[in-house]
């Protein structure tokens, strides 16, 4: 059975959407990642225009992350105070990253820079997380303990705006998570991803938050980031396909519930090693992608979705006139 996507302008099999949504939702609930790095390429492979795929993916992440946030909230895994601080830092970083991309595009090297940044950052984060988690797992009984904050350097402890983040069990200056998130936001914006891949390890290793709380809090900030992106894409580019987003959400919300409940059966280090393996797999995939000779040197590009739907404005206006009269 296929379903017609009114904004994408094409029809697609329902099981592809449910399956892809379910897989990404599971990873989202389990690891606190949005899953855009996985879902957008799947949708593009299924023939959906890239801009519609990316914008609708943001919309479905709203559904998946709200489902997972609610589940994590009941499990006591969401630190709202930290989440709001991270959100503010992430949005600031994203805005700066957009400007950086503009400069890179003007210089003409943006895409190459993005590809190499992706491989280096993801590889470094995934690799270091994998090694650290493996060491902890080999540590036996110690591994069952959640990560605690490393001893904070004296200078950081003397920064102003010191706040207790009770849910995370850490005390930091608001400036520390804010500026760390600015950096993550810049990188995420340049790489075109949500940034949870970097956000979760940053919360665990640099802020000393327990892994489960880092996952829940990452989802909290992802929910608001993607809600903002969805609204902006709807009003600016008209590329959010609600039917596509809801079909994906049908799978991802259930997958997110399963993933979030699975976290109860996994230790922090086990969750981190899964996230590390995922990051390394994406890195390998990206590396193969730039080394192997492509079957086709052309691939659909971002841009306005109407490029793929040349007559939409005409029939839209005509249909709107009829609908408004009726």
């Amino acid at each position, binding site marked *: 059975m*296929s*379903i*017609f996507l*009114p*904004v994408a302008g*094409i*029809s697609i099999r329902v099981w592809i959407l449910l399956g892809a949504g379910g897989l990404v939702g599971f990873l989202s609930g389990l690891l606190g990642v949005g899953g855009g790095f996985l879902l957008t390429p799947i949708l593009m492979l299924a023939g959906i225009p890239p801009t519609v795929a990316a914008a609708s993916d943001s*919309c*479905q992440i*709203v*559904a998946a*992350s*709200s*489902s*997972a946030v*609610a*589940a994590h909230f*009941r*499990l006591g895994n969401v630190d709202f105070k930290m989440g709001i601080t991270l959100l503010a830092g992430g949005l600031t970083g994203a805005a700066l990253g957009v400007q950086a991309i503009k400069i890179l595009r003007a210089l003409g090297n943006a*895409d*190459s820079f993005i*590809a190499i940044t992706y491989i280096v950052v993801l590889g470094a984060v995934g690799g270091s997380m994998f090694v650290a988690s493996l060491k902890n797992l080999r540590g036996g009984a110690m591994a069952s303990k959640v990560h605690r904050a490393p001893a904070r350097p004296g200078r950081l402890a003397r920064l102003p705006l010191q706040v207790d983040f009770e849910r995370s069990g850490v005390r930091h200056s608001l400036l520390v998570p804010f500026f760390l998130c600015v950096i993550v936001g810049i990188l995420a914006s340049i790489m075109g991803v949500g940034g949870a891949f970097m956000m979760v390890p940053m919360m665990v290793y640099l802020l000393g938050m327990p892994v489960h709380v880092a996952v829940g809090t990452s989802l909290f900030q992802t929910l608001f980031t993607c809600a903002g992106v*969805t*609204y902006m894409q*709807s*009003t600016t580019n*008209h590329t*959010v396909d*609600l*039917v596509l*987003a809801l079909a994906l*959400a*049908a799978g991802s*919300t259930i997958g*997110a*519930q399963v993933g979030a409940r699975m976290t*109860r*059966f996994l230790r922090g280090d086990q969750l981190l090693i899964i996230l590390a393996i995922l990051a390394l797999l994406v890195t390998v995939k990206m590396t193969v992608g*730039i080394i*192997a000779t*492509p079957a*086709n*040197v*052309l*691939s*659909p*590009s971002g*841009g306005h979705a109407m*490029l*793929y*739907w*040349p*007559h*939409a*404005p005409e*029939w*839209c206006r005509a*249909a*709107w006139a009829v*609908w408004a009269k009726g």
Partner: protein
Amino acid sequence: MSVASLVMLSLYAGGVVPPSLIRSVTPRVIEVGVFYEGANVRVEGVAPPGSKVILTVTGSASAEAFNRKARYGPIWLTAGKVRISGAPSLFLRFSAEPVRNLLSDDCIAGNDLDEAALMNHVHLEPAQKDPALRAALQADYVALKKSDGTYDFAGSRIVMGQPSNEGTPYTLEFRWPKKAPPAEYQIHAFEVRDGQVAREASVAIPVVPTGFPAWLAILSESRASLYGISAVLISALAGFGIDFLTTHLFRGKRVSH
């Protein structure tokens, strides 16, 4: 004046009304609802005695943007964007036997009936001065279109009936590609005689969204702000709703960590 027009004039002058090249197209309009799998389209007509028919289904000229990869040392990176315009958004070609058996190469090229002829209309931006690179990009473009089913030159699917005095009736049945977006398309019939196109006829076939998909597409364009807020709220409510349902389904099975 074209050869086809001259033939038509001579036939009319002699008081002979030629049979309809395209007698019927079913359905006349392809309606796109919520669950859309494409459509079965049937074209019927009559080829005058001693002639054959080639049918094409075409969309209007499209413009699409692509990333173009190029090799830099050992790695392939995006070298820039290419805008490809002028080629039809949809091109399906059907005939009862291979087109090369029916028409000369010049005639195929003159009537835009093969890949090479279609590519003559393609504009690349930025323009590619190297002919080999230009040809490679055009070939890759056609390969992409073939892979998504919007270009098909396979062709021999027209079924010819029993000849009569009027001519030979033909029938074409094909699956309308579900990836062809809503727009107006043309079904074009070429009457082929002695290796030349003797006459042409065309019929429009609109693909029109109806019901909920049409309403939603209109809303996304005309009330973008309302659409955006609704999309966020509906998605969030769907997420919280699923959480509520699963919480009640699994009540009493909670395990703390």
